């Protein structure tokens, strides 16, 4: 390939070879009540958590969305949500951009699990729930199965075998978008959602 590549690698290879050190023991924490820890952590960063049952979540969500005066909702059809003004992200972003950037009030997505230690959702966008769904609308509603909460990042990576099959994009989401760039004062929704609502399905 390029000359630059050859030169850089040659310089690195000409340097003294040091024995790579072993990784010393370190254990990320575990929790007796993972749901409780998850909830405490994500609420501390302005996330909203609702505990719901697997068959009543749709009704509950309708109530929450109505309370927040949401009009248009983005959700994949397979979620079976019943809402008047509902759109699916079923066209390439090039044809959907205007709507996505300013025409949607809330998006609903699934998650692959969550991390108790840091209060993080694991989100893997796919064809039905593309990457920008959890980012552009001002409210993001995430569905989480209570049984999919792991203790920590190392554990969930291992359990779900991430390294063997990394998707195009894998996200950890811990709270709504925020900034503290102006005098270390927290402000939410600077670029992404202003609100993150997690429905934990039990």
């Amino acid at each position, binding site marked *: *390939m*390029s000359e*630059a590549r050859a030169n*850089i*690698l040659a*310089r690195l*290879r*000409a*340097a003294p*070879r*040091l024995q*790579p*050190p*072993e*990784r*010393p*023991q*370190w254990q*990320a924490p575990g929790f007796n009540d993972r749901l409780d820890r998850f909830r405490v952590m994500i609420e501390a*960063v302005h996330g909203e958590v609702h505990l719901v049952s697997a068959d009543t979540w749709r009704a509950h969500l309708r109530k929450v969305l109505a309370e927040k005066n949401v009009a248009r909702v983005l959700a994949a059809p397979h979620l079976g949500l019943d809402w008047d003004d509902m759109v699916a992200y*079923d*066209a*390439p972003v090039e044809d959907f*951009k205007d709507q996505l*950037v*300013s025409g949607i009030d809330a998006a609903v997505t699934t998650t692959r699990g969550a991390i108790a230690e*840091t*209060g993080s959702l694991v989100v893997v966008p796919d*064809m039905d729930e*593309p*990457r*920008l769904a959890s*980012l*552009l609308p001002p409210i993001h509603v995430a569905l989480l199965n209570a049984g999919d909460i792991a203790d*920590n*990042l*190392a554990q969930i*990576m*291992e359990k779900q075998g991430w*390294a063997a099959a990394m998707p*195009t*994009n894998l*996200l*950890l*989401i*811990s*709270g*709504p*978008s925020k*900034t*503290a*760039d*102006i*005098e*270390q*004062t927290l402000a939410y*929704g*600077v*670029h992404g*959602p202003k609100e993150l609502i997690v429905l934990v399905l039990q």
Partner: protein
Amino acid sequence: MTSDFSTRAHDALNNPQLRANFRRAMDGLMTKRAAQFEDKDNWHALRARGAAIKARALARLPDLLEEFEQKAIANGINVHWAETTADANRIVLEILTAHGAKKVIKGKSMVSEEMHLNAHLEAHGIKAVESDLGEYIIQLAGEAPSHIVMPCIHKNKGEIAQLFTDNIENQPYTEDVDALTAAARQVLRREFASADAGLSGANFLVAETGSLVLIENEGNGRLSTTLPPLHIAVAGIEKLVEKLDDVAPLLALLPRSATGQAITTYVNMISSPRKAGEKDGPRQVHLVLLDNGRSRVYADEQLRDTLRCIRCGACMNHCPVYSRVGGHTYGSVYPGPIGKILTPQLAGLDCAGDLPHASTLCNACVEVCPVQIPIADILVRLRTEAAEPSTSPAVKGAGSGHSAVESAVWKGWQAMYAHPAAYKVGTKALSVVGNLIPAAAPLLKQWTSVRSKPKFAAKTLHELAREKGYDHE
């Protein structure tokens, strides 16, 4: 890059507003970080792990770069190599030109600052818009970042409110942080939607999977790497880690050290461009690997430790010098303790030789560094390298700070301490004539301009000891 640290430090110290802005910010950051690492045993185990992961990756760096490249290419990512910042700028410009791109939206990237990429693109008719709120603010002000994590930490609300009123159409003056943030969101949404390309850095590159890992709170990094049809990332060659699970302990260190957060709002792992059937994401992803002196630094076993840095900024937050003089005083892209060791190594001691002296060697940075970089030892090493020509090919500009007078003084000092007779005569002579030397004498003048000249005692310590009856000194 020329640097005159002391002149700028003098100005900064006389700017009460600047000092207040930094003091408030640094106090807050130190308190928040301390709360994250209350369990000392865990902190020690965790940072030992973090340091070993980075040291391990460095020991295997050439192999890992090749492994990463192979995996990334297999995933559909284009990998480019740049020896200098000029090369990197050329590569980025070529990619943009090939796509007919006129506007680039940028996530926060210190390497792009190192490249002075924005200026390069502007010079070729391409608009680069910073989208991290802090970076956006300093871009409006036409300034450089003063901190590697919080670029506009030197500015207060009033200054920012004024900037927004002056630069954003129909923006009334307000110091309300929510209103200011909302105004920036509106302006930048439009920029995102119309950008032809997104540019970002990377916090980690994972050799095992060919993935880029980016962390951030705002979501502008995700937008920059997802919404435009083209994504270009720039990263130093030292960003490699071996395994995906190496990312876990490093993520447990980085945000907690940087801002005292358990984790950033977003951890964005990118492994490929948009695949068939996927509805968004860039159609092409390019990664430019930048050397810019890193492989030279790598040649020296001690200096190589500098490359472990994960750019958390904790060393500057805890630095008694940085927190008083601020980031711009360093005159370099990377300020504070890490800047004091990195800049003179990348640019050369002949360009930034005064930076290693901008330290009291108090060791605060070493105590908080999550990857255990021996910053103080490296500072001392660089001071030595600046004074005498070096045998190490890793150091650029060694010997550039050589002073014949200084060297003679130290040789005299050495001789005096090596010979008891000379020591006796020397100390006696100083006790007699020392107080007659005026504080403004040529060699003393600079030193005594900010300190009072010490008074020499009438009798030497030896004489006093002997009077007390001690025979053997």
